[in-house]
Structure formats: C-alpha cells, structure tokens
C-alpha cells in the first residue's frame, strides 16, 4: 500500500538547502534567469543517460526545448556553481502539467532527485498547478521509485511506458 496523499500534504517550497547522501551541500531554487547554466547542465548530460528522447543534444536543440519547459514552474538543484538537477512542470493544454526531472549522473541515488520533485510539487501547488502526470519507461526502476516516493501512482500504461499521476 502506498501512503495516501492528500491536498494537505506538506510539500517544501524552494529555495532551501539540503545535504545529499554524500554530504554535499546542495541548494534547490526556483528556475529563473539561469538559462545559460541549464544549457551547460544539459550539455554535460551523458547521451547514454538520455531517456525517451530527452534531453535533446546540442545547444541548438537544448535552447528551444528549455523555452518550452520554462512555460511552467521549474526548480534547479545547485552544487557549488553548477546546476546538477532540473525539474519542470509543463502545461499540457488540458488543465494538467507534465513533470520531467533530470539529475546529473554523479548526483543520482543521493536523494537529490526525490527532493527536487518534492520542491517542484510545492512550487507548482503555490502557483496553481492542480494535477501532475508523467510517463516513464517501465524498466527505469530508479525513476519509478522516485515518483512513488513523491506521491505518484500508476494511472495507466502504453506499451513500453507507464503513465503516473497525482493531484496537488
């Protein structure tokens, strides 16, 4: 049984800091005037770590894609001067928002992804988002685990993918 999530669930509101599992001091802040840092972040992304065709490769593709992500609330995880994680809620044109989250390889499995998603849900709720959904490849157990921990439940499946959603 997954825990029941309700609209009264307490979600953190960025900015705030945390210590990751390796003792690194990481700050979570709302996305804003940090496009260049995000372009650099996605350029550092290992192509082998891409999933479902994302993130795009090369700054010429990354920039317009970031503009789409910026249409909704976003959060960035910072370690020292570098963006090491990014998550966004993209309006789907049907009253809900699609959630995407990316964490740099060296920062995965340290709790940053889970915290980033919680922070994004907190920011999203504060900005009026009422429902979030996502698609994930069914063999991507690490990602599915993060989504379960952050209150997403399986809403359906399509071939090789699972659709998960939650209300805010």
């Amino acid at each position, binding site marked *: 049984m997954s825990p029941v999530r309700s609209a009264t669930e307490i979600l953190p509101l960025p900015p705030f800091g945390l210590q990751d599992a390796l003792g690194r001091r990481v700050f979570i802040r709302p996305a804003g005037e940090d496009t260049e840092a995000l372009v650099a972040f996605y350029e550092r992304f290992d192509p082998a770590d891409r999933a479902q*065709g*994302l993130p795009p490769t090369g700054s010429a593709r990354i920039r317009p894609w970031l503009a*789409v992500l910026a249409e909704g609330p976003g959060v960035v995880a910072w370690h020292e001067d570098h963006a090491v994680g990014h998550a966004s809620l993209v309006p789907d044109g049907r009253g809900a928002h*699609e959630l995407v989250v990316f964490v740099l390889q060296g920062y995965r499995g340290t709790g940053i992804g889970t915290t980033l998603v919680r922070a994004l849900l907190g920011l999203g709720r504060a900005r009026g988002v009422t429902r979030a959904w996502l698609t994930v490849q069914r063999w991507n157990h690490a990602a599915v685990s993060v989504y379960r921990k952050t209150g997403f439940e399986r809403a359906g499946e399509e*071939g090789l*993918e699972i659709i998960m959603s939650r209300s805010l």
Partner: protein
Amino acid sequence: MNVLVVLELDPDTGADDDALAPLDWVLQRARRASDRIAVLLVGAAPGAPAEALEERATRRLGSWPGIAHVRRLPGEPPREILRVLGHEPWDELVVSGGTRTPAGKIRPGSLAEYLLLNAPVTLTLVR
C-alpha cells in the same frame, strides 16, 4: 532496394509535416533511381484530411525519378501492413516513431510498437 513507407494520419494533427516525416526521410536518403518506394496511408477515414495527406505525399514523390506509388490502406492497419509485406520482397519498412509529450518525451505509437515486434523486415522509426 524496395522501401515501404507507412504514413499514419493523426486525427488531432492531420496532414501536417510530422505526418509526412517518414517519407521525407526516405526521399532525403534515397539516391538511386532503382529504389522503389511505396507509400501506405493508414489511420484515415475517407475525407478531407486523408485526401490532403495523399495529395501531399503524391506531390513529394513527384520529383522522385524511381518507381513510386501511394495508396490508402483500408481495414485494420497492422494486419494489412503485414499482408502487404508478405506479398513482395521488401527490404525495409519505414514508419513514424510516434508522437511527443508536451515536455518532448517520445511516445512510440501503438502501430510502431506492433510492427517492431511483428514485421519480418528491417524497421526504421523516423522521429
């Protein structure tokens, strides 16, 4: 080389450039006039969007020097495509890789998935 191209009409987007992407990819790659290209249009009930897609596909093939033809595939597309594949020695099947979510994630279409599992020839998904 015999290439079979499947164009799937999306009821939401109609005969836009995305619907023609597999054909554009094949035409861009094809260099030899000995190549044979056949285009199957699926997913379209008779009507204006299906006619628009057929017209646009035919126009794109207009400058192609090799053998080419376009036809609409009635009935149940996945099985019909396999039937066409079984009739002649095709070298490659080219289909659309599916749609994208608002954030840009690829969603393989159900037709592409079915063909990936069942087609007896090399399959190329065009994004």
